[in-house]
């Protein structure tokens, strides 16, 4: 197992490094291991995530891609039995060091979840909550502006501008998910993590979210976990394939889907399993 990993990382880092030499590394992770109690969910994952790119994490269910995603903003901390080992650096700082305040980290690394989960409050309050608790904006005008900007960026403004006081949970599924994206944008994070953001949505809503992800790439670094290989192909620049807790292969999305180096990747993307 270790040998395969070694060869992978060597093979993988070389072409990417040459292709993306100009790009900044946002997350630099080495030897990431995650345990749930006695069970190991991730084995020595080495992965770099570059700025202003969409990185897709794909793989069959239970392969550890969501677990990996959740190590990036320490959402795993909320699970009592979960332990994380290895090096995870955001802009060169170890995010698991004692000096890092997890609240601050999560303000920098926002998250959008699988199921749209707006707060049971008004649309306005959903967006205003984050800036308010972080003290980004205090005056009514500033918050109004952030709400409008965030909703505009999430391409939801036109649909909801006349009903900002209505409950966020009253929107359709796709709108709710865009509201959640707007909510994440509102705290001006650097990275947005998306955990299967479209799995609960219909194809039209999915298409809109995918468009949105592509637009957001200019301002944010995005890591997206997805079950849909087509989606990964459509929205991402780089794709990482996970299998049974291992990072099997990572590279430019085009290459992964056309000329995968690993047999398991080949099998997965051709639909032989997963």
């Amino acid at each position: 197992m270790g040998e395969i990993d070694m060869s992978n990382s060597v093979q993988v880092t070389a072409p990417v490094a040459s292709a993306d030499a100009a790009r900044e590394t946002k997350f630099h992770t080495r030897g990431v291991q995650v345990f749930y109690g006695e069970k190991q969910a991730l084995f020595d994952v080495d992965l770099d995530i570059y700025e202003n790119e969409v990185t897709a994490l794909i793989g069959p269910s239970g392969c550890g891609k969501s677990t990996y995603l959740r190590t990036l903003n320490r959402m795993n901390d909320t699970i009592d039995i979960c332990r994380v080992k290895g090096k995870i650096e955001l802009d060169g700082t170890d995010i698991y060091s004692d000096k890092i305040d997890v609240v601050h980290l999560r303000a920098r690394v926002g998250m959008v979840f699988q199921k749209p989960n707006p707060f049971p409050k008004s649309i306005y309050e959903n967006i205003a909550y984050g800036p308010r608790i972080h003290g980004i904006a205090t005056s009514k005008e500033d918050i109004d502006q952030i709400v409008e900007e965030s909703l505009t960026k999430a391409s939801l403004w036109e649909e909801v501008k006349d009903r900002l006081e209505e409950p966020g949970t009253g929107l359709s599924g796709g709108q709710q998910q865009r509201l959640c994206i707007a909510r994440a944008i509102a705290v001006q994070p650097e990275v947005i993590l998306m955990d299967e953001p479209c799995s609960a949505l219909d194809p039209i809503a999915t298409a809109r979210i995918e468009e949105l992800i592509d637009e957001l790439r200019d301002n944010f670094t995005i890591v997206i976990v997805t079950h849909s290989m087509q989606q990964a192909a459509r929205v991402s620049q780089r794709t990482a394939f996970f299998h049974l807790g291992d990072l099997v292969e990572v590279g430019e999305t085009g290459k992964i889907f056309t000329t995968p180096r690993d047999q398991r990747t080949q099998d997965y993307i051709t639909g032989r399993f997963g």
Partner: protein
Amino acid sequence: MTDAVMTDVQTPDQMRRDRAAHASDAVRRSLKKRYAAEARFRAYGIGAVGLALACIVILFSTIISSGLPAFTQSAITLNVELKQDVIDPEGTRDKSTLINANYRKLVFDTLLAEFPDVTSRRDKRALTAILSSGAAYQIQQMVTADPSLIGQTLELSLPVAADFDLYNKGVITKETDESDRRVSNQQMAWFDTLKERGIIESEFNTTFFTNADSREPELAGILGAAMGSLFTMLVTLALSFPIGVCAAVYLEEFAPKNRLTQIIEVNINNLAAVPSIVFGLLGLAVFINFFGLPRSAPLVGGMVLALMTLPTIIIASRAALKAVPPSIREAALGLGASRMQVVTHHVLPLAMPGILTGTIIGMAQALGETAPLLMIGMVAFIVDIPGSITDPATVLPVQVYLWADSPERAFVARTSAAIMVLLTFLIFMNALAVLLRKKFERRW
């Protein structure tokens, strides 16, 4: 599936159709059975609900029918002359003179004047027994409040003694053998005469709602016990709600899941099942004997009941907190809210309706609790209306118990009336619970 079966066993079409028909027959038969079972079950359900309703109707109708007489009270209207030479012969208007004056003589003389032919001492005493001892007290109160009334003749409506009140209401009748009743034939005749003269009337029993307990049924009221209950409940609420909610929030949201918290959880569940009198003993030993807090006080009663209510509130609050979807917590955490902010901004508001319901259920239990309060002396006979949480007091259920224990027949109706007041309290509390739940419940 069928294809596979067909190719494997080479089943002819006919056989397949037969089998299908057979299967649908079997389904039809089993359906019939299922419907019958369903109908039976529904009948059992309706029967159970009906039985429960019938019990409630019987309970309420007995309580109301036996309690209603307590809400009226017979009164006698007399023109009492507030004679200067009886009340204050020296004309000093001194307070103690006014308080200690012989008002009994005033009212008795007035009543005796109605029957000039009654002369013997024994008859006089029998006749004046019609008047409640509260009559003289009422005049005393009036005169001390306004001494200028002395010398005037006032038309006063004075309470009738409980036994005559019962006779007036038809509870005591002439059919009963004279030796078996507390009102003699002679007294009945006098009373009837007074009634014919039109000076006996039945009026709404305001005394019942404005007085505390008394040895005389016609003077006994529920206000003392109601105030006692109110103060006790306030203490209970003030202690158990914040402590219970804090404990529930800590255990549910912050505490690590280890053996210690498991033991705590088991113990909380056990505490909810501890007989309430044990809490009373605890209160007696700790609050009164060790800390020296006053006996019979709503303060101690409230503390004991708070102990008893805590497990209920904690369990209900934890259930309510657990019911808040984890996705809300994740959403807030993902935005960078601290755990405290997650709880206070999102989880607690969403759990509030459930927490309030649990609290009101706990409070309703506490309101009806008697046993632990007996242990800490709230069973005392207290004639003053408590004005604070440290005044001696009793509570509604204990008052019910005390009156049910009293030998005077007139207390029977008052016991039921007190139960009605207690039930009204409960209904108000439950209505409050519904209102609060509606107010806090988010409709989205």
